[in-house]
């Protein structure tokens, strides 16, 4: 079998990454923002896996593992902040967190 060229895998990762960015940039609901972040991190992880499999090395997977660790940690902290935000403002609209400017 021919296998998948590496750039195809990377393009897939890039596409997911861009979609995540998209979500980050235009969603106002903080849940979606956090999910977009997860998408981006996941895309990065995917890229690592693609690279790792391409080079046939375990490093890629270990990096992916670390990415997942980060994603989990970030999700927990993010959600905690989200709850606090909702608690304070009764909304998940992150635009309320825009008092500081100038």
């Amino acid at each position, binding site marked *: 079998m021919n296998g998948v060229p590496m750039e195809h895998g990377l393009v897939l990762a890039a596409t997911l990454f861009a979609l995540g*960015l998209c979500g*980050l*940039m*235009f969603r*106002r609901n903080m849940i979606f*923002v956090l999910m977009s972040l997860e998408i981006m991190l996941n895309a990065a992880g995917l890229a690592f896996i693609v690279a790792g499999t391409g080079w046939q090395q375990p490093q890629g997977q270990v990096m992916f593992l670390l990415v997942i660790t980060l994603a989990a940690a970030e999700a927990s902290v993010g959600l905690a902040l989200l709850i606090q935000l909702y608690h304070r403002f009764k909304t998940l609209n*992150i*635009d309320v*967190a*825009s*008092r*500081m*400017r*100038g």
Partner: protein
Amino acid sequence: MMEPLTTFLTTLSTAQATAALLPLTFLLPLAGTLILAFSRGTLSYRLSALVGVGSVGLAAVATLLLALGFAADAAPQTVTLWTWIAVGDFTPRISLALDGLSLTMLGVITGVGFLIHLFAAWYMRGEAGITRFYTYMNLFVFSMILLVLGDNLLLLFLGWEGVGLCSYLLISYYYQHSANGWAGFKAFIITRIGDVFLAIGMFLLFSRLGTLNITEILELAPKAWQAGDTTVELAAFLLLGGALGKSAQLPLHTWLADAMAGPTPVSALIHAATMVTAGVYLIARMHGIFELAPLALYTTGLIGALTLLMAGFAALAQTDIKRVLAYSTMSQIGYMFLALGVGAYDTAIFHLMTHAFFKALLFLSAGAVIVSCHHEQDMRNLGGLWRKLPLAYMGFVVGGAALAALPLVSAGFYSKDEILWQALAADQQGLLIAGLIGALLTSLYTLRLIIGTFHGTAKSANARHAEAGRGFAHGLPLVVLAVLSTFLGAWITPPLSGVLPAGPGDGVTAGHGAVELIAAAVALSGMALAVWLFGLKRGWLRLADHGMGAGLWQLWHHAWGFDMLYDWTLVRPYRGLVALLKSDVVEGVFRLLAKLVRLVHLGLSRTQTGKLRGYAVTMVVGATLILLSLALVI
């Protein structure tokens, strides 16, 4: 009897005596200045006057002793006090040179100066700022003495500027009237313009000859330059420029008439007898340079001629008695320049001296009239004073006679006649004719002045209630000056032969008599015409009221419109420039830069919205740009 006197004179003529006396002449007025300045208003009027007059009086005594010594042994002497500056070749010294020329000037300054100071004690009585007045006056005498005694151009320049400053201060003496201040301002600025020429001339001479010492310059100049060399012409022209400013000659003459704003003794001392003649002195002093520069010399004579005509006409149309005298001063100095221009330096100095006598007399008399008439000085408001103010009338008559060169009896006749003769001898017929026309004009305006002031009927209350001045301070100066303005004054022969080259007419007698006759005729006919015009028929008024006469009268009254010309060409543009640049245009560029920075700041601040999504977008834009640049590079 004679023995001690001879011994005394011999002692006076020694170098030691000169060294002791010469500094005294200017140190005494300086001491007066300092005492008055630091009295801080604690001196009484009498004491101030005593210090002010006394210091100049003592200086006059010192001068007299010097003159006696000089008469005994006429060797020029130099007294060096200290080296002023010494940097490389540049070593001007504070050094005084006594020779015939400077002694003549010294005599005029201290002698006439003393008389005027004395008169001022009467004139200024009751004025509050007498201390200030005498401070300035003494300072002036000090500066003027330095001007004539300085053996180098820089020291001369010190005096030159000093008298300018004092002139400014005294013109604006009555400071509460703004116009007086501006008159002083004008005087200082215009003379300063001349000074700048003098300064540049100094720079030029120093850079070419490596010295500022006058004697050395006069020695070196003929070796350095051919006659007519461009450089020396330039130097001469620059010196001439300085002289024109100080001596109120065309085109830098406009300040003198306004300078009459000062107290009348000031006009007498500064603007008639001494300072305004400094230009004549300068040119005479630097004759070696002018001898090498025929063009400049000719220009000097030409300017003198033009000025004497211009001022003569202007004097005809003045109504203020002091202004008449001011224009007459310009005109007389024009004669001196004319003399200089034909190379008759000694004649110019001689006229300078006699002019100092009779013009001081005229001014002091005018001062007497003015004070007596409660500060009324417009001829149209005076008249019929000859009975009430006999002494002043005497002064005017004697002085006027000298001014108009009344033949034989007046001092002015001898000096002016000499000038005309020298012009003829130098083969400058044009200048001669100008001088003759000037003489006619002089007679006209002099008589107009006398008739207008003293004859006819009093035309104002001030004139009707005139009170004659009394006292020693009032009388003595007038009498002494009157005596000097007669032929007796003309007997004083300035000891110039060793200093100045002989004029073209010296030693020649052929034709002299003819010139004298013509001059006398012109003067007399002018007087007669004046009597006819102003005295008997009042024909003048008819002429001046109509048509061209009125126009000419206006033109002459405004002295040919030079003031207006300068106002339009210099003053207004400068004011416009000031107004234009007032807000510091150049710095505006930087202010604009600051504005730009602030604008950019405001623009950038708008990116700081506080909105998270906006921040994310910016970040992505940044990342995109970075990657795009990579995509474009490879």
